[in-house]
């Protein structure tokens, strides 16, 4: 009876709207809007164009990496090495540029570093069968160590203007990194929702054994997702190097956990099978807005980590509780 009633009301437009609002993305959007209105009430400059572009600019590298991390979490894995990959790829590009390589060549080589790290991660996880935590933890340290070796612990600067313009230029007043990250997030979200190939991630995360029996080439999908994540991390690293005009050896430290938090706030689960890139982006945005609000409200900055941690826990617990109330979906 209940089931019948539920399916009957589902057809009405009002119910469709309710269902839409019920989705994780809209919930975060709602919280974001509410929060923004609240903060703007106290500090009007929060709504300024400068503040928003500062938020989005600081978010650019995270949101690009979050695309790959979402693929991984959806398919039941994750990657702790993204921060190191990002820094290493940025540094390699910078070193090659400083050595006089043409800009496109240096960028491609930097991306190659990311692909290589992702490929190693993927092969070790899918083919050797080591779990993602250990594998990417090792790779995190390995890549960071390699970075220290190739840079000798020094930041790399003195990059040509034809390269830095990629991170510092703007189109219609909006910086390239913002445009670039938004475009990638949009494309990624569309593809994860619609493409046949990426849809396989949900099946693998949902039940890996059943996915195998359904004819999905699980190992291959996993390897390619890790490669994509490595590539995106490298891209973020090169972009940030261009923006700052130098490659820093401490770039991306702690970034992996921030990105994973954002993806989980956005609706993904470590168990796999759920999550969207739009959700992950909104999760990252929520965290950035919180940081910005803390700044502007004049709260002591030491509170930032505390508040971010609380946000993650609240989001996950809210999810859990609403799932229990809705029944079945444990």
């Amino acid at each position, binding site marked *: 009876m209940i089931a019948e009633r539920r*399916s009957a009301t589902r057809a009405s437009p009002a119910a469709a709207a309710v269902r839409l609002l019920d989705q994780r993305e809209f919930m975060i959007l709602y919280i974001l809007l509410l929060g923004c209105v609240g903060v703007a009430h106290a500090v009007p400059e929060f709504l300024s164009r400068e503040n928003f572009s500062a938020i989005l600019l600081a978010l650019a590298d995270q949101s690009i990496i979050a695309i790959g991390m979402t693929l991984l979490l959806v398919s039941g894995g994750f990657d702790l090495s993204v921060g190191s990959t990002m820094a290493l790829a940025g540094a390699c590009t910078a070193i090659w540029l400083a050595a006089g390589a043409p800009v496109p060549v240096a960028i491609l080589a930097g991306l190659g570093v990311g692909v290589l790290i992702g490929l190693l991660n993927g092969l070790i996880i899918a083919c050797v069968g080591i779990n993602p935590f250990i594998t990417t933890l090792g790779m995190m340290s390995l890549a960071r160590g390699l970075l220290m070796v190739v840079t000798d612990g020094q930041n790399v600067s003195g990059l040509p203007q034809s390269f830095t313009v990629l991170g510092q230029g703007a189109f219609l007043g909006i910086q390239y990194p913002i445009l670039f990250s938004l475009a990638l997030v949009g494309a990624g979200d569309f593809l994860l929702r619609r493409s046949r190939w990426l849809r396989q991630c*949900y099946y693998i995360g949902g*039940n890996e054994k*059943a*996915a195998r029996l359904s*004819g999905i080439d699980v190992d291959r999908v996993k390897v390619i997702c890790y490669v994509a994540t490595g590539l995106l991390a490298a891209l973020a690293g090169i972009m940030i190097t261009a923006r700052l005009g130098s490659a820093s050896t401490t770039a991306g430290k702690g970034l992996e956990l921030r990105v994973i938090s954002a993806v989980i706030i956005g609706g993904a689960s470590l168990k796999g099978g759920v999550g969207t890139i739009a959700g992950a982006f909104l999760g990252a945005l929520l965290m950035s807005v919180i940081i910005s609000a803390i700044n502007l409200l004049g709260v002591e900055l030491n509170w930032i980590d505390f508040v971010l941690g609380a946000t993650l826990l609240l989001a996950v617990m809210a999810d859990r509780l609403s799932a229990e109330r809705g029944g079945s979906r444990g």
Partner: protein
Amino acid sequence: MPVFEARDIVKTYPGVRALDGVSFDLRPGEVHAVVGENGAGKSTLIHVLSGVTLPESGILLLDGRPVVFPSPHEAARHGIGVVFQELSLVEDLSIAENLFVGRQPAGRLGLIDRRALRRQAAALLSEFRWNVDPETPVRELRSAQRQVVEILKALSLGPRVLILDEPTSSLAAREKGLLFNCLRRLRREGRSIVYISHRLAEVFEIADRVTVLRDGRRVDTRRASDLAEGDLVRLMVGRELSDVYGTRLHALGAERLRLVDGRRRGAFAGITLSVRRGEIVGLAGLAGAGRTELGRALFGAEPLDEGTIILDGATLRIRTPGDAIRAGIAYLTESRKEDGLFLELTLRENCAAPRLGDFCGRFGLLDDGAITRFAESCRKSHRIASPGVQAPVASLSGGNQQKVLLAMWLGIRPRVLIADEPTRGVDVGARSEICQMLRGLAANGTAILLISSDLPELLGLSDRIVVLRGGRLAGEFQGSQATEEAILACAAGVTEGAAA
């Protein structure tokens, strides 16, 4: 006077009355075998006797005094030792540590006294005349040896009553001999043993008395020496067949699937069989006979090491499930929750899983409308009771989940369907619908290989029954030869099946 007794035990699970007023008694110094088909209630009885589950009604008497076992620990404290089918050893620890888990001899400061542990373990092992270093990690043992460790672990508690659930399913002949000697010694010491087994020959070899369970009731308890093997089989089966299974109305077509000399290491060898269009071939055998492994090998999940698969006259190379699906072979797994369904995903996503490619439009994008329409049609044609195609499969009942699994695989329009325990754990209504679906599929020319431990179902649906024993073909039965007695006897190795 019986040392341990159960009176009028009732235990129900949702939809099943697992034990329906069963009484059981154990005398001092006897080996008492409990036999019955799968689902007869043997496991539930053991669970009640050993404190794993509490019965809804009925009492347990130990030395004539009522006892309640709220936990296995409590049962163990009263001297009831159990060896379960599922092994409960910690692989990374040594034999000695596994034998005395939770009660290792400790010295000062609560530290484990390694020397004493080693000495006690060695003493126990030598009693069983097993020459092995007690420090060997369990990981390095073969499954039969692990079973022995499991049995020794139960014995090390010095139980008055020892319950063994299928102890020989993985034991080699030599280890089985050691086990039986050990049991005879325990019997001489006046201890009592409950012995569960599918292997009737063993029952006659070791048991003093036999209790037969069927459909959750006790059929009879008799002295083993008063019984012939044939009597026992008849007591175990003795049930009328109803017509849930229907009858075949279509003619069989040409040969569709043929396996020649199939072999997979550690599972089966020398298997040759064929299935015709529209034919349902039943695969019978005990647990561990290699039926599931054979099904999974034909599907490429754990591919054949050797052998040829011929489908409609063409030789196929099947190394992955993807190969099998492209060739039109579908496989219904025996454990839908484990590796069949995507429980957290929606009905819609589940239905589309094995054929995502069919819903692929331009640029590799999925046509979600088409997937929804397909799922809706599955829901209607298979009468899946669900609030809608967006409902997670976890929210459906067992029978409906099984129908989703079936719908998922019928979607690829299979030329061959391998159905592994298709009605396990579903209620009577869903069961008859599933049987009708299989019949309908066969009528449309699909060749079906049916794996089932439910003999009435196997007999009711199959045109022909092939029996596996220990990974080898043990016999083939057809028409009037195919009786439950004959198949059970052949599967248990009591008599040779007719080679057809």
